């Protein structure tokens, strides 16, 4: 039986070129839930991404409009998008999406992830 969280992640996974989708707890670096291709390096990547999100937030500070929205990492074969979901409690969550560059446009993928993101925690 699927859960609402799992179903929401599957909706993101259904987008063109998406290989893996995961929800990461920023405070602990824990992979709360993931769907798609199993990735043995996902747990380690989640910790790094959570650290990066915290560091970026610290760098941006509390200035107006300075909230972190997304972290993007581009490799020759893939695009890793980490969208910040600001719902409390804690430090929020990251919606991590691994996109195959050969099958998706980077800008379009980022747009689609941004559209799906609010529904993940709803």
């Amino acid at each position, binding site marked *: *039986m699927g*859960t*609402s*969280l799992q179903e*929401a992640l599957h909706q993101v996974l259904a987008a063109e070129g998406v290989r893996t989708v995961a*929800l990461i*707890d920023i*405070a*602990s*670096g*824990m992979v*709360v*839930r993931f769907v798609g291709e199993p990735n043995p390096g996902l*747990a380690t990547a989640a*910790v790094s991404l959570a650290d990066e999100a*915290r560091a970026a*937030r*610290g760098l941006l*500070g*509390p200035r107006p409009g300075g909230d972190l929205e997304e972290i993007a990492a581009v490799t020759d074969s893939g695009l890793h998008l980490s969208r910040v979901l600001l*719902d*409390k*409690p*804690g*430090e929020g*969550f990251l919606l991590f999406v691994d996109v195959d560059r050969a099958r998706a446009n980077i800008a379009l993928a980022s747009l689609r992830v941004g559209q799906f993101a609010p*529904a*993940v*925690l*709803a």
Partner: protein
Amino acid sequence: MSARSWGPADGPLGPLDQALRDCAAARFSGELHVIGAPGGMICLADGAVSAIETPWSPSPEVILLRSGRVTSADWEAAFTAATVARGRLSDELVTRGLVGAGELEAVLRTALADAMFAFAAGFVDTCRAEAGTPDFEMPLTPGAEADGLVAEALRRMEVLADFPGPPLHARARVTAAPRAAARRETTPDDGHDGALALIDGRRTIRDLAFARGRGLYVTTLEVARMRGNGLIAVPAADGQHPGDEDGDPQRKAAAVGPTAAGLPRRHKDRPAQPKRTGDADGRSLPAVLRLLRPRADGGPQAPRTVLTSNELGGM
């Protein structure tokens, strides 16, 4: 499997690791009692973990309320409605729009991982499984796989072990270092201010987690980072202040001036009771009394009636 016990075993989780594996293999449903420090109870449904209660780790209720995600009034209204309808509180919270279904599941999963970490950070002596249908207000349905929670708990232990200094215990009291107060005035909030404001020398790491509605692991991690930055001190097991035990002259130099709370620092060579001084600051009593007389130059207002030394002597 209706009832079974597991005796003491090696490893961070003692017999709990094996107990969870056996319960998962048998698709056990019921309560798994954890005896140790902290003790606790794990609710299992078809071998998966649906809820955990332990006094070291905040429950989902504490997390949602203390973080301000759900107000107390809304929570009580949802609780009452769920009780009257004999429904689940989690369903009621979602139906009322107080929290999203996905967000609630994420909170439940992170709370389970934190509770499992609390067991790993403590000591598990024995475990006892009793079949039945546990009644929890907010179970995770379907439950989380136990091996995933155990792996996450062990990962967290490894992360904390990488920090320098003695291991942090959930019941260790945390004290703010003097530089913490100055730092709060001069540097922007980097996320530590919330914790620093609650550190009063009496609260333990576990207390901080409950006060803020954050996980035990996240709080311990934050304390470890702040200790590394010299913002706080965590007394050693024997109660000795860590700043005294390492003989670090910089730390000792920092112990001059006001405390983190801005109060005058009490020195070791200072007596607990003030000296009885018949002659304040070396002045004679008549000289002191003269200071209390009204000043002709409009200085600070003095008492209207001042006894002179002669009047005192005549009493």
